[in-house]
């Protein structure tokens, strides 16, 4: 069978071709482009908000610099009150030195002492615990406690158990009672965790 293409058929084919091209151009190029342009309004709004946020942040720039310096100073001052935590062994030695110096100053013989290794307490501190047992008069004990409190580096009595060496139920008939106290103290030293440099 011979295929005969008349003018009418040729015109129809031409229209079909043009329609196909138009469909392709519209559906593949024009409509997607128009859709993407349609999203431009919400996109612009988002960017406006972002820019406004950024500009507000820029205004705080100088203020932040001042605040940072101030807080750094505060932190440095506060950290100076603590035993340095970058070397736990040295820190343990320093705790022992503080305690022993205080005991020595007050004429207390430490009968037993024990010091733990540094343990992580929270995000900011590690802790060294020292337990000690000794006998002392009430004056010696109070002076010792005062020494500990006023030590240049921050140490604190976490637990204390104090009992008289000899339990009395009434005052002696003659003279002063010789009050010896047996003390069992737990002393803790908080060590700031060194700040890691970023990067």
């Amino acid at each position, binding site marked *: 069978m011979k295929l005969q293409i008349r003018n009418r058929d040729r015109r129809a084919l031409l229209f079909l071709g043009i329609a196909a091209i138009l469909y392709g151009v519209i559906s593949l190029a024009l409509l997607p482009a128009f859709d993407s342009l349609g999203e431009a309004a919400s996109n612009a709004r988002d960017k406006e908000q972002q*820019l406004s946020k950024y500009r507000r942040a820029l205004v705080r720039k100088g203020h932040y610099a001042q605040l940072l310096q101030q807080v750094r100073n505060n932190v440095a001052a506060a950290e100076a009150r603590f035993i340095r935590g970058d070397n736990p062994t040295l820190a343990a030695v320093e705790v022992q030195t503080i305690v022993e110096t205080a005991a020595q100053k007050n004429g207390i013989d430490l009968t037993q002492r024990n010091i733990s290794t540094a343990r992580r307490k929270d995000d900011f501190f590690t802790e060294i615990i020292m337990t000690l047992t000794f006998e002392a008069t009430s004056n010696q004990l109070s002076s010792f406690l005062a020494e500990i409190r006023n030590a240049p580096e921050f140490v604190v009595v976490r637990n204390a158990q*104090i009992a008289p060496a000899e339990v*009395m139920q009434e005052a002696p008939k003659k003279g002063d009672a010789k009050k010896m106290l047996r003390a069992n103290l737990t002393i803790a030293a908080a060590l700031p965790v060194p700040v890691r440099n970023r990067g």
Partner: protein
Amino acid sequence: MVFPANSTGIELCGSDLRFAITRSAFGKLQLIALHEIAGFTTMNDLERKKAVQALVKNNRIPVSRVFLALPREHGIVRQIDLPAELAEKLADIVKPQVEMLSPWPVDEVYWDFGFDPPKKNRKLMTVTIAIVPRAFLDPWIAFFKDAGLPLSGATLSSLAYGHGVSSFWNQSTPTLILDREEDYTEGVLISGNRIAAAKGPAEAVVRQLLSAGKLSSPEGCRCIFFGRTVDASDLDENPRIPLENAKPQSTAAFGSIATSLVALKESPFRANLIPRDMRYRESRLQLVPTYVLVFLAICMGLALVAREPYQNAVYASRLDSEIRKISPQVTEVAGQESELNQLSTRSRALTQQLQNREYNLEALRELARVLPATAFLSSYSYQDGAITVSGFAQSASEIQNLLESSSLFKNVEFTSSVIRDAGGKDRFTLKMLIEASQ
């Protein structure tokens, strides 16, 4: 023809001038209007001109393509058969034929020819030649130009009828056309590529045509009758013209309708007797401003639709570039903010730790101050802000009362039962909290 085009056909028929306006758009033919100037030939030149001008003005007749069909007797139509392979050189071959066929000197005639493009299995092709004396056509060309209807083409009525039949039906069925005017009857028989024409009394014309077409009777022919003497009821019997908007009565103007199609359709009978250089043609360049304006209007419309989204896109892009510009500084501020937060948290933790003091000294001093001389402590324990003391006293409840009254202690309570010993003293154990530690 793909794009819309109007064409005006004019037939000089009897004493009347008939107009038909047709339109071709996207391959479809449409009849727009029919007009007539009755008694045209009886008018003088000035009246004719005024009548035509008035008709054109009142009816807004398109003047871009105007074709005129002259009465058949003002020219001659001849058909010759030529070998199909000569199709490409037809103009050169027909010219000597015209010299032979024309009763007038060749210099004094306009001629043209139409032919059906040869098909592959056909060895011969029929060429239809029309010849008209210049002396007859030139006055009409001048007249219509003067009247504001410059002619784009001219043909003879019999060829126009043949062209119309061929354009409308394009079938091998013979078609008999009779134009019955008051003074005469003009008949044309079209059978395939063949055309025969006659003029005279109706019966003689029909007989002559049947004889020329080698037909015994009009039976089996498509017959179209029109003209001044044909009633409207007779027009209804004519085959309907396959033209949009055409009514059965439209066959009354078959000649002018067929003439208007000369500009729009091809057929073996299509001949334009006006030489190319004398044909009125509207330059396509004059449409350029229209197309440009249409294009600009479309662009303007698209621009209006796309303006807002486009401006938003441009605005978003500028915002984006501004954001990118200040982004490093903002990153620095964000870093500062983050560092400040970390340092603040650390500072709070350090301060809190420093404030977390113990109160042993104060507690021991307060116990020594408030306890009566008759009370003796056997143990003192301090753990996480809670103090527990055990001892002997004359009255345990008195001790509790004294401690509770102290500004340093609170929540003083017994942790075990109070036992009175043999010496008459209460043995107690009290637990309390430091007021300031809370």
